[in-house]
Structure formats: C-alpha cells, structure tokens
C-alpha cells in the first residue's frame, strides 16, 4: 500500500491555506447576518469564497449561478490555486462557450462546509479559537443554497437568469428552484436527482468510515495534532471514484492491463493499471481536500430529499413554478441514473412546468458531466440561448 501511505506534505499542499486564506474573493457575513441551519443551529459569522466571470449588465438580469459538485469548488473556469489545473468546467464556461462570459455574469462559490475558503470544518471557530472540526453543525443542501442566496443578495441580484450544476451541484440547482422559485428564471440540473438513493448513501458511508478509521483522524482534531487522515481519505476517494465511472469506461481505459510489468507480481503492489490509477486518484485528492469537509459534504448529500420536505410528493415542491427547466442525464451513470432525472421531469410535467429533458448516450458514467460531451454542450447551448431569448437578453 505504498502509494496511499504518502508522506505528509507541507501545509500549502494540504489545501488548508486555501481554507483559511483563499486566493479568491470572499464575502463576509457578520454576527448580524447569521445563517440559519436545518439542524436548528446558526452559523455566525461566516464566509463565502467565490469567483465571478464576465460582467453584470445594467439591470442585473444576466447572472448565472454555477453550483459545484461534491469535491469541486469556486474555480469553475479559472486555474486551481492548489493543483494548477484549469477550472473544472472551463470547457463550458468562457467567451464563446455554452455559458458565454461575453454575455453572462457567472458566479460560482465554494459551498459552506467545504475547504476552499468558505466556512467549513477547517475554519477557526470563533467560540473556541481552534478549528471547528466536528463542532461545526451538520449542514444540508438547503443550508448551502440559503448561504448562496445571501451571497446573491449581497451582489445586488434579485433574479438569477440561470442556475446550473451537476451532481451535488444539480441538487443545489433543484433546491434553488424549490426554495426560491421567483429568483430563478431557468434551471439546468445535470446528472442529479431530487434525493440521494440508499445505494449512494451506502457508498458515502464507506468513505466516511474509511476516514474515521484512520488513526490520524483523531476524532476530527487532526489539524491541531499536525497530522492528516490521508490514508482514510484516499481510500474514500478511491471507492467514490469507481462510482463516477462505468464498467464500459473502465474496461476501455484499463481492461485487465498490467502496470509496468509483464506478469503478476504475486503480491499486493499495484499489478493492474486500474489499481495504480485509483491510488493516484486517492493521493492527488488528499493534497487538495480536507477530510472533515468530505464528511460534512457527503452527509449533506445523504440528507437531501426534496419530496420528503413536501409531504412525500415531489410534484408539490414545484407547484406554481414559472422557471424553465432542462434536465440532463447520462446513459451510463449509475450514481444518478436516468430514472432519477426522469422522476423530476415527471413531477415537473405534473405541474405543467416548462421542462426539457435529454439523456446523453455515453459510456463515461457519472463523470461524463465533467468531460467533453459535444451533445451535452449542444443541449446546454440550445437551452441557454432559448432561455436568453425568452428573458429578452441580448
């Protein structure tokens, strides 16, 4: 297990510097503006780290809010300060791209509970002067969206032209539509669902148990101890990463090919390419992500269930909506299979909402929403163009 047992790197490589002093912009909410949480507690003061792209027009009608996925962040179309890689949706967002920054003002913030500058478990708890760790109240997707709405208020925007997001970001997009129907002109949830399935909760639990089983986790107080539960977090990431792919994609990429050898090593080193690949995914992830944040964000996804909040009837959540919806799923996604999107579409049909739905045929699994899928881009482009026309945007 040599790769997982990577040596501890310095603080800057742990993403903790970005958690405390983010290189992006930060909106600060003081004691007079607490965030009320579903858990019954309040978070105050708190901070939201965010990035913007393009210009807000005079009547503030061209704003698009982009919601990131579980381990994503606000660097949607700009270089990541820790990894140095391009933004996670730089193929979609930029001048002349489906989300055209020549036309639209794009806002993307790090969700609360995460570790790229918004208040999360690595932030300092003003009550104790030490990192929150598990003293941070458990957060939900509606909590995250409530914080996002406060950010949008601060930016002086009444109505978003669009809310877009994939996976956990898609959950947030749906939550925006349900919680603030009059504030979202159009909604584009991708590779997502209105609730987290029991299978998905199961995988998240495997990941959390891996983190908490690491002796360096130390009941969540590892930052003060100067250690990190890297092994546990890497294992969590490895398990999760498998759920983002598909059998077809794994087979095409790796098959049973061996890594740098002609025959089995008859041991437990990474004989197969897929093993080596997963170990790499695990180790690079721990360099940029905080283990406690992983616990909080997976928990937020687990709790998500729009129908439950509306008497078990999903359609009730959308009753009266005037927003335009476009849902996108991917045929080989087994984390959020097409049926999950279809359930949302049926609920929207039941309240006669304006809804489009397309399933993109691909063998790339859940990850397809982050990859180069021309049909996905074309659908997104068409939907945004027609919504912009309906909104009277130039």
């Amino acid at each position, binding site marked *: 297990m040599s790769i997982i047992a990577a040596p501890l790197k310095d603080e800057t490589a742990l993403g903790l510097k970005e958690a405390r002093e983010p290189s992006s912009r930060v909106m600060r909410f003081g004691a007079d503006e607490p965030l009320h949480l579903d858990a019954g507690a309040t978070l105050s003061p708190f901070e939201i780290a965010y990035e913007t792209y393009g210009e807000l027009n005079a009547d503030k009608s061209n704003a698009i809010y982009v919601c990131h996925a579980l381990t994503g962040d606000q660097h949607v179309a700009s270089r990541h300060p820790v990894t140095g890689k391009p933004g996670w949706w730089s193929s979609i967002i930029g001048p002349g791209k489906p989300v055209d920054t020549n036309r639209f003002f794009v806002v993307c913030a790090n969700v609360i509970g995460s570790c790229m500058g918004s208040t999360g478990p690595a932030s300092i708890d003003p009550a104790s002067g030490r990192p929150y760790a598990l003293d941070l109240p458990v957060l939900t997707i509606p909590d995250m969206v409530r914080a996002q709405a406060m950010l949008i208020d601060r930016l002086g925007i009444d109505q978003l032209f669009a809310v877009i997001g994939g996976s956990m970001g898609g959950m947030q997009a749906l939550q925006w539509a349900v919680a603030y129907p009059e504030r979202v002109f159009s909604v584009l949830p991708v590779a997502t669902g209105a609730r987290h399935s029991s299978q998905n909760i199961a995988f998240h639990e495997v990941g959390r148990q891996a983190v908490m089983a690491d002796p360096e986790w130390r009941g969540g107080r590892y930052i003060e101890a100067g250690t990190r539960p890297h092994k546990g977090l890497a294992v969590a990431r490895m398990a999760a990463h498998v759920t983002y792919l598909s059998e077809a994609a794994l087979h095409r990429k790796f098959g049973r090919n061996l890594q740098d050898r002609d025959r089995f090593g008859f041991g437990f080193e990474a004989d197969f390419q897929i093993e080596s690949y997963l170990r790499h995914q695990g180790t690079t992830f721990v360099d940029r992500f905080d283990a406690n944040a992983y616990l909080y964000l997976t928990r937020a996804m687990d709790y998500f269930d729009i129908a439950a909040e509306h008497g078990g009837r999903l359609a009730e959540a959308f009753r009266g909506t005037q927003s*335009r919806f*476009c849902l996108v799923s991917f045929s080989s996604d087994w984390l959020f299979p097409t049926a999950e999107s279809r359930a949302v*579409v*049926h609920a929207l*049909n*039941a*309240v*006669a909402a*304006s*809804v*489009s*739905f*397309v*399933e*993109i*045929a691909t063998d790339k699994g859940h990850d397809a929403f982050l990859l180069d899928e021309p*049909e996905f881009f*074309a*659908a997104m*482009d*068409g*939907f945004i*163009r*027609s*919504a912009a*026309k309906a909104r009277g945007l130039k």
Partner: protein
Amino acid sequence: MAADGNARVDLELIADLVAPGSRVLDVGCGDGALMALLQARRGVDARGMELSQQGVNECVARGLSVVQGDADRDLIHYPDAAFDYVILSQTIQATQSPRLVLSELLRIGRHAIVSFPNFGYWSVRLSLLAKGRMPVTRNLAYSWYDTPNIHFCTIQDFVDLTRELGASVESAVALNAQGGKMGMNLPWALWNLFGQQAVFVLRK
C-alpha cells in the same frame, strides 16, 4: 424560418388547425419541425415528447422544450387538461397501444389532433391485392421487418376507434396523393379509398 417554406404538408395543415397563442404538446415531435412551425406562425407555447435521443437533442439544441419519453408509458405523468391541444402527428401507427394513447391524449388535451397514413388508400389496397406483399410507398417507406409502424389503420378504423372512446370529431381533413384537401362533406368510405393521409381534430 427556412423550414417554413418546405414543411411537410400535414404539418402545415395541423398548424392551421391550432388556435394562436394556445398551449400545445406534440407527442412524437421528432426533430421539432412542427413545434418550430407552431411557435413561428401561431405563437403557441409548445412542448414536445420524443423517444429518439437524436430527435430530443436536435429539439433542445434549437431551443425547444422537449422531454425524452415514450407515448405508451409517459403520458400518464401529465395532468388532466394541461394543454389546449395534444398532437400526435404520424405517430399513432408506431405506438404499442393506440387505444390507450388516444384516450390519454383526450384526457391531457382539450383537443387532440391526430394525423396518420391511411392504410386504406387505394394504391395500398391494390398493391397488397396485386403483389401479395406488404406495400412500401412514399408514406409507408419501410419493409415489414424493420418498420417502426406496428399498428396501421385505415381512416374507417380510426373513426370507429374514436366512437369507441366516446370522442367527437370536431373536424377532419384527408389529403389525396397531390396533397390536395378532401372536404368533410365526402363520405368516410371515399376518404378511406382516396385519402393518402388524414388529420383529425377530436375532443372528449
């Protein structure tokens, strides 16, 4: 819109039957040609349902509201009287359960517009009679073994079905081989013989 000029004759006909500014669901909307025509010419609020991914993608890419779905399975998710018109254009013969689909159309729409190729058209009859083979014509352009059309009917059959469902025919047009309209004053039997395709406007 460029598509306007060379739209299929039956699409033109349907567009003329839809009241301006109404809410329309086009079941089996294909690449969205009819929806685009309806939006451009009649200013309707058009929604579509289409089975093929290619069709759905084309619709979404051209900014039309379309849901990927199956008429046989997914109409059940639409509420009663949600639309002014529900249109089934050249699709009923490709459904598993035409009777069920038609009754769903009548439930969801205040009006249902159905167009279909007439299997009772004289040359179809003649072809079957003379050659003893399933006819392949311009309107029925598939061989029997690879056709998506599994429930062909004649105009007379369709009229019988509407009666069975208790629907009333508000208006109907048949098109002859030249694309000319045959009036409703002609007896069904003549339509059945000379109509190459038919368009019916129904209501429950």
